[in-house]
């Protein structure tokens, strides 16, 4: 009897340990404490201990049921692709976020306060910057957006994207992709999908059309 009891007790203790650590990790990752959400690797290590990556793995498995995931964004300069076997130093400097595992439907984005035009503007801005090797003059992006949106909306949108951290602007008026795009957008997938999307007939005459209806989009489910 005693022989069976010992491993069970050990398993129970380990479960309690990871549950406690997972709770702490969720607090660190979900509640915004600095100007940016999420937590740095070194913060997690200090709070969760040296096995923090294991705790995050357990948390990630748990979050899968909720359509969320733990996302790691390595520091700039590490390379465009995430390293396969990151060093402890790279992990320390990386930022960890909890992001949506799947994707949102257009009606859900409306609830988040995004108009479909704004999302299109963000998509155009990000894709254009990617196509220009990561840097594009603000004027060029504005001109491109003005084809689709009224002038005042173009500027408001760009300033909003900068404020949110999707794009940044340097002293030479060049726009670049910022931390939030690296955390939230699968850029390779975005470009692939854009290039594969068929242009509907007559769309060339529909520039600048204001789009408000999203009911049709609601029928489409998640892809992700």
């Amino acid at each position, binding site marked *: 009897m005693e022989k069976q009891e010992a491993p069970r007790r050990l398993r129970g203790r380990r479960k309690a340990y990871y549950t406690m650590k997972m709770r702490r990790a969720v607090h660190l990752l979900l*509640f*915004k404490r600095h100007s940016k959400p999420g937590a740095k690797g070194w913060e997690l290590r200090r709070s969760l201990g040296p096995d923090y990556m294991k705790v995050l793995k357990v948390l990630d498995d748990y979050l899968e049921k909720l359509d969320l995931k733990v996302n790691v964004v390595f520091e700039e300069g590490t390379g465009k692709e995430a390293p396969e076997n990151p060093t402890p130093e790279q992990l320390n400097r990386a930022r960890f*976020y909890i992001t949506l595992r799947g994707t949102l439907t257009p009606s859900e*984005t409306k609830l988040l306060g995004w108009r479909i035009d704004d999302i299109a503007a963000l*998509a155009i801005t990000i894709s254009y910057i990617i196509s220009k090797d990561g840097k594009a003059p603000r004027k060029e992006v504005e001109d*491109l957006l003005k084809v689709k949106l009224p002038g005042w909306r173009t500027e408001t949108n760009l300033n909003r994207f900068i404020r949110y951290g999707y794009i940044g602007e340097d002293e030479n008026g060049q726009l670049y992709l910022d931390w939030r795009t690296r*955390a939230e957008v699968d850029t390779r997938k975005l*470009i692939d999908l854009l290039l594969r999307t068929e*242009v509907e007939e007559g769309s060339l005459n529909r520039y600048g059309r204001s789009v408000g209806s999203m009911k049709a*989009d609601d029928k489409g489910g998640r892809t992700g």
Partner: protein
Amino acid sequence: MPRGKRKVGREDLQGIIELCRSVRSRGLNPFLVDVDDLVAVLRKYFSEWDAPEDLCLDAEALNEIASIIKLQSEWVKRRSTSLYTDPFLLEEKLRSLSNEKTAKVFLQAWHPIAELEQLSIRSLEEALRYWEDLLPLDERMLRERASKVEPGTVTREELVKSGILAEEAFLEEMRSLWRELKEKTGMDGRIRYWDFIGSQSYEESVRRAYLTSFLVTYGYATMEIYPLEDEIFLKPLKEPPLQIGRETLRWEKRKEQLFSIPVPISYEEWVEWRSRRRREG
């Protein structure tokens, strides 16, 4: 090396440095720069440099050329990877897709961050401190009441300072700057922007730049801009096309195309201009 040749050589090197820097900072295609040509210029002067500052300038130019070669190498590498997308193709696609389709595509690649904002102990402390320091409403109202002032005299300087006489003084100042510009321009009728606005103190340089911007706006002078060389020249006009004062000519009547150009007047640029000026004697 003869003095004239030295001056030309320095200008050439400075030109190389500026060209490379502008290509780098503006993200232009690095293959726009003909590296062989630039190296040939360096080679032409290298054996004749003897002063340490000239050799430093030469090294700086070489360093800038090396950075362009690095950019060229990265450019080729990027284009040969599977991640590379033809920008024209993508731009065309973005232009032709409707907003709904673009947004739908984006939503398939977008995984927003889940985050919650909440009050922290620190922000609560700050709020408490603010509340404690805040005076009662009746006390604040008391402070804002107008105070009685005895009649007195005021000087012209004080009027200018308070903005009452500002315009006339400003216009007079602008006109004298225009006369100065006409005197300073060389045979080709133009002068480098920094050589005109630059002064012994940084404050004075900023003041001159501010006045110069009005010279150009009101049509007393025009600007010639060479973005690749990063050079700006000022060219005074013999007669201002606009009637300065209250009755300014309508913008539509001006033939030239009008647009705004921000010209940064940073302290670093002023220091650089001053040292260049000293070097040139």
